[in-house]
């Protein structure tokens, strides 16, 4: 899944985020289309092949909890590395320069490590099948139903936006009419998810990851060559955008002006802590990948394994953005036809010959579809096991729920096609949706984190905390920011502040409510609160899992140290 969900990288606010300039039509030919067609065939083939393995609802929704760590780890990172993330981060780099690294090194790695080391034992050990199901066990049905509904709603909206973004890009690059791409891609995803469930989605994500690498590496290499290597790049950027553009922290003192509209404090707390923890620890489309792992060690290692490519992928999206800023000096401003989002498409058109161009187009399309698929697969799980199975039709045979899961997948895809067409009527839906989604992730995270560490958090506090946090973040954005009651220089800055507001409000309300309502009996908190373990969780470590390179603590701390080290060249 991509991340339009993810720490609100702003698709640069001024313009409609995904309308690409007309002259970006790619010179594709039969070779490129052959490469694309082969990919489509393989994807569908994976769907058919995965179908054989689906017998129970656990198979369909969670791959039977049996996948190896390297697969779930790569799926974890691929689910995040969708096309909107790729295009959007390149756009971010073209606009904000090297600040983009914050979204990766501080805005992802600590949270991913936290998920793996601290939260996974609870998620995996409790055997919950979804994030809302955890809230059911920890709090009560109110919290469960509210979070399930919010999540299902958001998942469909995001899947639809992905589909719409795909249609726009395809129209600009290949000339297909929008409705054709929407319908074709929609039915395609419908096909392989309905057939093979989560296994299909995950396998395709892993495949997509490598195709994306095969696309971005040549692009970055050629881009760098064109602007004279890294030194040539930084020199050109410094002379056109000032020295801060190629640093990570330059210009981020509190009160100083920078294009991001944020200072080091809001970056560290707002992005680094609240927004990023909120996303990585509770976003079900990600967590689901870890939950499908074959044992606790594999589940813990999933986000940790994913952290390492995450550290380095930033270069593959940042370099094209920076190169575009050099090659098209007035990109994103009125002096040029091109928007920031056009950075990667522009480079594709400018640098890649047929062959690699086909790989790049395939990678981009694959990433969009995988983004949509990840949202659909998490939607169908939450809708079936959390809403339908608990509140509408309980106590049916397991096969009923597998059939229902397939049905609701079709419904979900149709709804996404609908929201995709709906999205086409908004001019700035992308950044808007990002903001909306960050409203949802942060309160969920507060409720989780307090519930997980504070035994006394009462049963009702989950529901009220969630409601309060969501409302506070929305009020901050819509009322305080949009009506200019407090002065925040940019959408991005506003998102960071909304995140902090949502966090604080949710926490305060949870404390208050817990003082007046009944806590959950300690016997039922086993495995849900820090300091306890799940009954039935004492599985002996699997053979080979005590190898040094499989130790979660080593992987986790290794990733953090590496990310911190990466900052050094960009900080002085």
């Amino acid at each position, binding site marked *: 899944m991509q991340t339009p969900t993810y720490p609100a990288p702003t698709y640069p606010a001024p313009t409609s985020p995904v309308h690409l300039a007309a002259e970006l039509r790619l010179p594709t030919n039969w070779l490129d289309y052959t490469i694309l067609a082969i990919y489509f065939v393989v994807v569908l083939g994976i769907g058919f092949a995965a179908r054989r393995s689906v017998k129970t609802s656990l198979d369909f929704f969670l791959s039977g909890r049996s996948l190896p760590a390297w697969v779930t780890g790569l799926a974890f990172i691929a689910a995040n590395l969708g096309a909107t993330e790729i295009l959007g981060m390149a756009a971010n780099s073209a606009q904000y320069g090297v600040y983009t690294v914050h979204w990766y090194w501080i805005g992802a790695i600590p949270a991913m490590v936290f998920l793996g080391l601290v939260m996974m034992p609870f998620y995996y050990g409790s055997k919950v099948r979804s994030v809302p199901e955890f809230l059911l066990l920890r709090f009560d049905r109110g919290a469960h139903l509210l979070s399930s509904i919010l999540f299902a709603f958001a998942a469909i909206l995001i899947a639809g936006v992905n589909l719409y973004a795909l249609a726009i890009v395809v129209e600009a690059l290949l000339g297909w009419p929008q409705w054709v791409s929407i319908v074709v891609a929609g039915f395609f995803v419908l096909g392989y998810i309905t057939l093979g469930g989560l296994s299909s989605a995950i396998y395709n994500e892993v495949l997509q990851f490598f195709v994306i690498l095969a696309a971005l590496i040549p692009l970055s290499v050629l881009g760098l060559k064109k602007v004279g290597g890294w030194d040539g790049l930084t020199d050109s950027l410094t002379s056109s955008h000032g020295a801060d553009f190629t640093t990570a922290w330059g210009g981020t003192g509190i009160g100083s002006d920078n294009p991001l509209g944020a200072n080091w404090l809001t970056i560290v707390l707002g992005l680094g802590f609240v927004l990023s923890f909120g996303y990585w620890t509770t976003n079900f489309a990600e967590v689901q990948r870890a939950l499908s792992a074959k044992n606790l060690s594999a589940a813990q290692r999933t986000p940790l394994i994913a952290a390492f490519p995450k550290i380095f992928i930033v270069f593959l999206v940042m370099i094209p953005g920076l190169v575009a800023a050099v090659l098209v000096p007035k990109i994103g401003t009125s002096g040029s036809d091109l928007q920031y989002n056009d950075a990667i498409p522009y480079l594709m058109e400018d640098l890649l010959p047929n062959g690699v161009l086909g790989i790049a187009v395939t990678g981009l399309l694959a990433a969009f579809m995988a983004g949509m698929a990840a949202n659909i697969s998490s939607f169908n799980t939450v809708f079936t096991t959390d809403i339908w199975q608990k509140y509408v039709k309980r106590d049916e045979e397991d096969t009923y729920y597998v059939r229902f899961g397939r049905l609701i997948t079709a419904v979900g895809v149709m709804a996404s096609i609908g929201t995709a067409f709906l999205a086409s009527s908004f001019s700035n839906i992308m950044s808007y949706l990002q903001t909306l989604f960050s409203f949802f992730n942060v309160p969920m995270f507060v409720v989780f984190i307090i519930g997980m560490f504070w035994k006394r958090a009462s049963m009702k506090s989950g529901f009220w905390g969630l409601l309060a946090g969501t409302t506070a973040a929305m009020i901050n954005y819509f009322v305080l920011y949009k009506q200019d009651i407090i002065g925040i220089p940019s959408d991005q800055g506003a998102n960071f502040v909304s995140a902090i507001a949502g966090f604080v409000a949710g926490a305060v309300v949870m404390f208050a409510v817990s003082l007046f309502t009944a806590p959950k009996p300690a016997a039922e908190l086993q495995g849900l609160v820090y300091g306890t373990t799940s*009954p039935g969780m004492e599985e002996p470590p699997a053979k080979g899992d005590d190898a040094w390179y499989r130790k979660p603590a080593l992987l986790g701390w290794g990733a953090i140290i590496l990310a911190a080290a990466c900052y050094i060249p960009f900080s002085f």
Partner: protein
Amino acid sequence: MSEHSGYSDRDLQREVTELQGKSATAARLFDIRRIIGGLFVVYGIIVTIAGITESDADIAKAQDVNINLWTGLGMLALGLFFLAWLWLRPVAPPTPDLDQDAERPAE
């Protein structure tokens, strides 16, 4: 058992453990390495051939780097790596295991 949620963690543990017992994924899901390996070998061959037959004009456009050739060879190497990994370390068939003892005595 609590009457509050009507669905406790014990219910969940039991339900999921049962499903894991009946689950087919571990036994029947094919190995993705075969697919990744196969796809990238195919892509590698196609793109390498494109690189070998590349016109000079195209190479000049790509900053004088025969990028098709390099990318093609890279993909071929990746594909072969996956196939080799699969060959050297095939997945062992799963044991008909199961933690029957994870079943708690009835409350």
